[in-house]
């Protein structure tokens, strides 16, 4: 059943006269609205800036306080605190527990705590080996309180910190001062949404889809808020930024297509559900890591199906239609990619794993390139570089990979000369305004017209250009909502990225950290493609990135992104709220609605 049919079914006969009367009401008040519009614009800009600034300040204000999970009492008399769940013991300064003796290898062994509270010691291929109570450790062995570890000749007695002691520590730390109330930010965001909604009605005429979808957005937001508060969590700046981006996405989509709001709402709901589900499932590290292989396998299978059965839309054969819904499997692949790339600390040091991952990534990127979706391939490549660097820290590997890509790039350019043309108009798109530079020139022209304040949602013309609501989103934002709001959207993504970096030290496992960084880099890189592709200096994103439009269902494209971003901060909030059972355990809040974000930026998994 298509959406139009669905709407028609829901629309009772009475409503059409009601619609007409409401439309007439709006028309008759047109001059009043004309005066109100500038007021709305100014207020909405102030709100947007406030929301983003508050979130950023709050995110940056939070201090990451170290927790101590155990102690190692050395034979030298030193007492070394164990501050993470995954710790590298070694001579190197980048180790978590530094024993600076020449007999100790740079990365000697790893001391890792599991969900259940049990500890393991793993030898990382050290020269002198690791002894547990006198016997050599082969690969890994469990450690309990009182055990004596011998590392490079140094004896260390292991003493975990008991839960009682930990809560004493927490009490001693004191309450976290929170100068920025998140509920206020949520109120501001709600006000922002109402203003956008009102402006959309004024410009597009009365529209049930718009009203209902924004109502759904409000509702979902506040339900989420209530649930969070019920679980005694205090901070959800990242989610607020996501809801903000979602709102912008709703505005852009509603402006471009009348059907869009319904699909947006469906996608948002699905995204939130997926978000919550994944949050819960993946909080268990063992479960999370066990999922990697099946995910990788199904990813390759999905890409394979896509290559065989996929439809070509806008030049990229990257769409599948199932049960009336058209979507881009690459969105699901992104999730899998993020998780496949993560690794716990003990696995990080095995070269073999990195090579396996490189092979997997190569297959994904290659498949995407063969399907013609170079934009998604580029995003995957950026994420891949991040993962490889995080896992191996090895510049040589990165250099090798980059060289391979450059070669591949040359091959692609020679096969597809139109891409080379796009690069050729770099810097002088205005001379090619009616051919290769079409989209960029239109984007810049419309964007400049909007100034800092914008014409108001629904009042642009850029939306009439093909694929505007996906490829040219930045331009549409500038034109309709103004440069200030567009910049605040960029700032939101930047803030999420900064948050990832800052929270990395608080991560319980490098698995979550790597996943979060991968997801962040995908967000940032995708945003870069969108912004820079639609303005001068860079080829348009059009042929380059996946085309998405306003139909279809996006299946949690960036859920894992923010999922993972939030995942690493589990520990951070442990001092702020009591550990709760059930759906929202300590701090593993994953991002909602990257849905909205997906709508906001291309590759949203929809069909034209």
């Amino acid at each position, binding site marked *: 059943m298509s959406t139009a049919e669905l709407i028609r079914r829901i629309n009772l006969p009475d409503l059409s006269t009601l619609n007409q009367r409401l439309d007439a009401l709006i028309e008759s008040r047109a001059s009043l609205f004309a005066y109100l519009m*500038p007021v709305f614009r100014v207020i909405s800009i102030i709100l947007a800036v406030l929301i983003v600034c508050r979130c950023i300040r709050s995110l940056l204000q939070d201090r990451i306080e170290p927790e101590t999970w155990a102690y190692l009492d050395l034979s030298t008399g030193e007492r070394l605190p164990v*501050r*993470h*769940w*995954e710790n*590298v013991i070694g001579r190197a300064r*980048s*180790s*978590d527990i530094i024993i600076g003796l020449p007999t100790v290898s740079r*990365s000697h062994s790893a001391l890792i705590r599991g969900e259940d509270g049990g500890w393991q010691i793993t030898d990382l291929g050290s020269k002198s080996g690791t002894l547990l109570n006198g016997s050599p450790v082969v690969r890994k062995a469990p450690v309990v309180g009182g055990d004596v570890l011998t590392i490079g000749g140094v004896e260390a007695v292991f003493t975990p910190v008991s839960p009682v002691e930990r809560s004493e520590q927490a009490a001693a730390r004191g309450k976290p001062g929170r100068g920025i109330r998140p509920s206020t930010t949520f109120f501001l965001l709600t006000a922002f949404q109402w203003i956008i909604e009102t402006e959309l009605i004024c*410009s597009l005429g009365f529209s049930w889809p718009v009203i209902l979808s924004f109502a759904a957005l409000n509702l979902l937001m506040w339900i989420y808020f209530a649930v969070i508060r019920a679980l005694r969590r205090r901070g959800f700046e990242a989610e607020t930024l996501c809801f903000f981006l979602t709102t912008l996405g709703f505005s852009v989509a509603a402006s471009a297509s009348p059907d869009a709001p319904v699909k947006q709402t469906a996608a948002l709901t699905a995204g939130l559900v997926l978000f919550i589900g994944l949050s819960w499932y993946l909080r268990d590290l063992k479960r999370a890591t066990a999922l990697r292989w099946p995910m990788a396998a199904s990813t390759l299978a999905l890409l394979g199906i896509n290559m065989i059965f996929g439809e070509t839309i806008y030049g990229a054969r990257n769409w599948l239609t199932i049960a009336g819904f058209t979507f881009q499997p690459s969105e699901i692949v992104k999730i899998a990619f993020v998780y496949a790339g993560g690794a716990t600390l003990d696995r*990080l040091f095995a070269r073999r794993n990195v090579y396996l991952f490189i092979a997997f990534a190569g297959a994904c990127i290659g498949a995407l390139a063969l399907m013609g979706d170079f934009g998604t391939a580029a995003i995957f490549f*950026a994420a891949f570089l*991040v993962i490889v*660097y*995080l896992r191996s*820290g090895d510049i040589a590997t990165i250099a090798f990979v980059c060289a391979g890509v450059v070669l591949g790039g040359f091959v692609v350019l020679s096969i597809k000369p139109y891409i080379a043309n796009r690069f050729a108009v770099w810097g002088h798109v*205005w001379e090619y*305004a009616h051919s290769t530079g079409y989209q960029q*020139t*239109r984007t*810049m*022209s*419309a*964007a*400049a*017209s909007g*100034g*800092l*304040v*914008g*014409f*108001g949602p629904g*009042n*642009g*013309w850029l939306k*009439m250009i093909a694929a505007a609501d996906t490829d040219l989103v930045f331009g549409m934002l500038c034109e309709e909502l103004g*440069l200030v709001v567009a*910049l605040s959207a*960029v700032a939101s*993504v*930047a803030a999420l990225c*900064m948050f*990832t*970096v800052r929270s*990395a*030290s608080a*991560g319980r496992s*490098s698995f979550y*950290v790597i996943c979060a*960084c991968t997801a962040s*880099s995908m967000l*940032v*890189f995708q*945003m*870069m493609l969108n*912004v*820079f592709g639609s*303005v001068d*200096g860079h080829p348009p994103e059009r042929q380059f990135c996946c085309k998405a439009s306003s139909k279809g269902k996006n299946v949690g494209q960036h859920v894992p992104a923010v999922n993972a971003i939030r995942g690493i901060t589990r520990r951070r909030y442990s001092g702020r709220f009591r550990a709760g059972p059930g759906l929202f355990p300590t701090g593993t809040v994953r991002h909602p609605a990257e849905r909205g974000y997906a709508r906001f930026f291309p590759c949203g998994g929809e069909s034209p």
Partner: protein
Amino acid sequence: MKKIKQRTAALLLLLAILCLGMGIYVTRYLTNGDKWAAFPVNRHAFSNGELTVGTVLDRNGVVLSDVSGGQRVFNESKAVRRSVLHAVGDSAGFIGTGALSAFKPVLMGYNPVTGVTLTGNTRIGSAADGANGNRLYLTLDSSLCVAAYKALDGRNGVVLVSNYRTGEILCMVSSPGFDPSDPPKSEKEGSVPDGIYINKALSSKFVPGSIFKLVTTAAAVEHIDDPDELEFTCEGEKIVCGEKIVCEGVHGTVGIEDALALSCNIAYAELSQILGGELLKEYADRFGLTSGFSVNGIKTAAGYFEAAADGTAGLSWSGIGQYTDLVNPCAMLRLMEAIANNGKAVTPRIIGKATTSGGFPIGLWLPESERLMSKETATALSDMMRYNVTSVYGEKNFPGLEICAKTGTAQVGDGKKPHAWFVGFLRNEDYPYAFVVLVENGGSGRTVAGGVASKVLQAAAGN
């Protein structure tokens, strides 16, 4: 864990690139946003490439171009339309120096803060009714332009009149043109006459002929100790450096004043040899005749003067205004303004003021001036130009105007008639006008161009 944490800093690199890119975009937006918004695909201000916001008016509020029913329209009177065509521009933008093309951001009301949101068309697709956009008042007086257009009577040429105290251009007519309400369809080659889209006053250069003698005279006045002592003997023709210099008549023995009034080629041929090519070039450059200047941002064409070698016939002809000399009419106008205004030229300008559609003034256009010559030289030239009229041209031809002028009959070869020039200014404080009249291939400067000038100036002074 620490190791991983350190490596996450790589993300900051990505972030830095994003921030750098945004910084570049914002910078470009601030410097080039007006050009982006003024691109004719922008539906907030254009429809089918036509500017559909903004009103152009003359100094008295006469509407020269407006928007009605979503389309650009022009003044009801055909004479007005034709006479201000090149100043106002056409819908399609073929006339690049017209107000509709050159002053798009002003008409659109663009500024970096509000973009075009206050003055552009917000509801795309609905007819714009001209209430949008800004009102741009040109300095032109449309009735004067009509008088000039009629005086040209279908001949090709230029009529420029400006106020030499303020620089305001009161009349800028260029011919040939067309009716902007009925522009020519350019399908067939040759069906469109040459040059109809060019504002010759700003964008063309012509052989000056005798009007260039003013430059030679200025050089003489400043560089020869007693210019009044100079004497030239004209016998109708003379061999100078192996080439024959021909004069209009046989003038006998003349001083410099009479030489200028009679426009004696022999005298000026000799004078050129005395002064030398380098000096003449220096004066041509100093008077702005060889470089372009800016009329509210519209660049004028640069003229040309080549310093011929001493002792050559070319040097003689160059001082007379032939040889390879070329001048732009507006540059000539500026020179007239300088002579009239004690040596200081107020740069000609075409924008008077601009207001929002509600009448709120916006923008600021301040007069600029540049000293081209000393007050003494200006006075000397001014007196000589007055003497031209009183002794040779005849006051009765310019009744009621205290006119100072110089004629020019520029030979263009190829068997064509010479260009007719008449340039000068009024010494009347109530009508402080400088003028340049050029009738292409019109014939005699005095009768043809002078006739046009007389009609135009009568109209100007009568207002």
